[in-house]
């Protein structure tokens, strides 16, 4: 299970790096989504993987009986997903607004903040 997860994380990261190396900000964002999922899986896997043992306390007991899955990484991943979702929503809105105003999301052509030396002012 761990090795499979590691492979998935590796594949996601490789794909995301490939996407993020492009000039298009949209593709960069798609790469970022993949990377953020890879990171979430990393956190999840680093909490150790336990198969078929939900972190539930049986009725009447005050601690789980036997070995159960680690609930903390799940809480962390949940937080990270929510935060990542918010940030990506903002980034997508930003990309849309930039496209609407400038007609491009190609980062080579977006030179408004740092115009080239010979560009007219």
């Amino acid at each position, binding site marked *: 299970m761990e090795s499979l997860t590691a492979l998935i994380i590796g594949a996601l990261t490789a794909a995301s790096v490939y996407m*993020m190396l492009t000039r298009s*900000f949209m593709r*960069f964002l798609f790469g*970022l989504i993949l*990377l*953020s999922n*890879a*990171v979430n899986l*990393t*956190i999840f*896997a*680093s*909490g*150790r993987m336990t198969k078929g043992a939900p972190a539930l306390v049986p009725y009447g007991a005050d601690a789980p009986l036997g070995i159960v899955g680690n609930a*903390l*990484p799940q809480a*962390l991943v949940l*937080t*990270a997903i929510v*935060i990542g979702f*918010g*940030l990506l929503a*903002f*980034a997508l809105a*930003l*990309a849309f*607004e*930039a496209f609407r*105003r*400038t007609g491009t*999301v190609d*980062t080579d052509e*977006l*030179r*408004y*903040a*740092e115009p080239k030396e010979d560009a007219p*002012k």
Partner: protein
Amino acid sequence: MSWVLVMPIAVPFATAVVAYLARNFPAGRWISVAGSALSLIVSALLMIAVLDQGVIAAQMSNWSAPFGITLVADYLSAVMVVITAITGLATAIYALGEIPESTERLGFHALFQTLIAGVTGAFLTGDLFNLYVWFEVMLIASFSLLVIGGGKERLDAGIKYVALNLVSTLVFLSGIGLLYGVTGTLNMADLRGAVAAAENQGLITVIAMMFMVGFGVKAAVFPLFFWLPASYHTPYFAISAVFAGLLTKVGVYALMRMFTLVFVGDVGFTHEILLWVSLLTMFTGVIGAAAQMDFRKILSFHIISQIGYMTLGLALYTPLALMGGVFYLVHHIIVKANLFFVAGLAKQYTGDTDLTRIGGLYKSAPLLAALFIIPAFSLAGFPPLSGFWAKYLIVKAAIELDYWFVAFVSLLVGLLTIYSMTKIWGYAFWKPHPEGYDPTPDRAPARVTTAMITPIAALAAMTIVIGFYPEPFVQFAQTAANQLLDPSDYVTTVLGVQP
């Protein structure tokens, strides 16, 4: 005691909510100022409590450490919280003059207060994952503040800023995940022991480097600083001042915290890298500034250059060097925010920030000229201003270690800083205003310029006070440095507190 720790975070958040509700009324901006003043008061109370009792900690929701979220304040955290509140108040007052009503209606003050809350939270938390959350609070507020008001320039800058900061956040987050995998804890005080006890020290060093990259992007160190000069010259001046003063320093603070508290197993390796990174940061920053001809772009590159001094204090890793680093951190926030404020007022007077298009400020605004001299020469390290003591401590620490090259680079960078500052002085203040470029010195109503010059004067006064009377500040920095180098108080306070 927990309310002392919670209030500096809760007050800006509450202010944000109220300011958002009142965003359509002129009262909204005064709520922001009042909230910032209240933040300063509660931060001062925190400082008094820390001075009185040493390190203080509180367990949120009574979950005892290391399981719950801990808020903890030692000397470094306390002084950072106070300086954040001071910068916040100065910016809130400055914003009264600068920010147009249309931007206020978009919720400017609410975003600004959220930013302050995020920064304060990052300084106070004792939990690594919680630190990530505060970083995100700070980031999302800063994203919005950067692009608020619109315009192609801001959108372009926003894209670069957002992209690089998101990547750095993910590096930081995966570092957290791996560190949790190795040690099984996320409480920073608990991590100190857990990291030292970890079997696989090689892996710990790898994780340490991930943290260095993640925080390094935030702090804008070489070679990760490209987002900073691409974006800091575009937003409102009040915003670039608070970014310049506070945001990169959160990265520096996080580096200082993690690389004195947690990652101290292989100092020879990690801090050696940090040393070279610092020197290159200092040098490339100041050279970059020399090539620029825009008021704010010059200042942006100088942020990078100055960050190098702070991380250098950490990299040398002696009591004196860290003391210099802490002193530098505090001095720099005041000075840098102030310089951006000055740039904003200079634009009010002359209509631009491009140095070739403006001039004559010495004649048309003598008070501003006097107030520019103070932070500018403090930045360059002239005695008796605050920057002199900051540089003096760092250089002395380098010489004590016989790192002559480091001392040489520090002084050289100081010299080149003077070059940039005299360039601004010569072009913006001394040279007559060029023909044909908006020579209307009095376009702004008095209400606006008063609101903008008050914080400039107040921060300049603080620079002078620290400069002429550095003794208590240096002693404070010394205690802070000692706490960083020997965090046993920190660890016992966090782990020993019973809910």
